[in-house]
């Protein structure tokens, strides 16, 4: 078994792999090829979508299964990736965006959770109906309404190059990246939003390569800054990249 399959070998296995039908002793060699072959990853994604249609057989989700899931997540809040700010490299205010360097060594990573998310999750529960309403209302409408609301906090992330992004923060901690001039990235790259809360740099969300109106959630009372970096697709736990745009509280 080779350490890594060549392109032809890998292609031949993509259908089987999409159906989880590749034996374990071949999986690693295939996955090594997939890691750097966009063509194979694209074909695999197509096969998986087709497989997904094959499985679409039962329309309704059993409520008792959800009950057990809800019981579990009440005890397991989601793990927002949080990192400590080990070192900041500041430059002149004009270049604040380029200077927003996020560095976190593994030794200083702490399991601190972001703002209100760490609060009792039970207090944050919403009904499915209300969320559905929220989802059915286009986010850009919600963000536009927030932009026009004098009660919301509004910050503008800037850069030396002139790129910017406007963040609005609702009193309940919901935030939107309402407007931006960020350039679209290649498919294998993504923008990632970071917040500084109590001196810690926290990932506030992976935004995708061409963000639309993006919601996030944070303790609106405690933030000290925001930055957006460019990262590999999927985002990172900590970044050493310069910020594309950034804003710091005075």
């Amino acid at each position, binding site marked *: 078994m080779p350490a890594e399959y060549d392109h032809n070998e890998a292609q031949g296995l993509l259908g089987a792999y999409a159906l989880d039908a590749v034996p374990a002793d071949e999986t690693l060699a295939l996955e090594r090829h997939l890691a750097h072959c966009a063509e194979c990853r694209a074909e695999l994604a197509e096969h998986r979508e087709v497989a997904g249609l*094959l499985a679409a057989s039962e329309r309704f989700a059993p409520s008792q299964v959800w009950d057990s899931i809800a019981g579990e997540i009440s005890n397991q809040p989601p793990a927002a990736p949080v990192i400590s700010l080990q070192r900041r490299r500041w430059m002149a205010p004009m270049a604040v965006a380029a200077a927003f360097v996020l560095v976190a060594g593994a030794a200083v990573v702490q399991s601190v959770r972001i703002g209100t998310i760490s609060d009792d999750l039970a207090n944050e529960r919403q009904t499915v109906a209300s969320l559905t309403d929220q989802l059915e209302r286009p986010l850009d409408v919600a963000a536009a309404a927030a932009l026009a609301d004098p009660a919301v906090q509004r910050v503008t992330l800037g850069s030396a190059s002139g790129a910017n992004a406007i963040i609005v923060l609702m009193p309940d901690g919901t935030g939107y990246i309402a407007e931006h001039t960020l350039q679209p990235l290649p498919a294998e790259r993504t923008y990632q939003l970071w917040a500084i809360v109590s001196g810690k740099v926290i990932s506030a969300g992976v935004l995708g390569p061409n963000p639309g109106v993006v919601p996030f959630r944070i303790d609106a009372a405690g933030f000290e800054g925001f930055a957006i970096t460019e990262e590999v697709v999927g985002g990172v736990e900590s970044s050493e990249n310069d910020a594309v745009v950034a804003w710091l509280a005075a």
Partner: protein
Amino acid sequence: METTLTRQEDGQLVHLVGTGHEAALAEVYRRHGGPVFGLAKRLLRDPDLATDIVQEVMLRLWKNPEKFDADRGSLRSFLLSQTHGRSVDLIRSESARRIREERDARLAVQAGLSLEEEVWEMALADHVRDAMSELDAGERKAIELAYFGGYTYREVAKLLDTPEGTIKSRIRSGLQRLNGLLAKSGLAPIS
């Protein structure tokens, strides 16, 4: 057809999951829990085990929402892929020997026939069934055994007494042809 809008909604929904909205996870479950549970149940032949798998998949999304990338595919296919993978892991694990033996007892001798009947009668939506009917019989059986049976392509090759390379090719070409057939009816996930 999977629309861009739906992909964006998936991404926004999962983003909300990542910010701690339990209701967002509930909405994910409402939208996709049926097929996810149905697939696990069909593979494992045990509602209790299927429940465990669905719970695991949903909790994984709750804890690691960043694993889903809306640019790479739909949330539905992501969840189904996770469910299929975990179910197959369970089927193939040593600890599931009893499950496998019971399952194989039902499937082994007449694997192709019994599975095909069930798939056609219960599992496939009409439009997918129509597309499947246009595949070569060899392609169709290979896909059914691998996906709904949870067999590796080597196991499928043995069950069908066919060379392994042929089975690999049939699965791939069958999926490609299905994609094309579903595209004609406006149902292809990716054009």
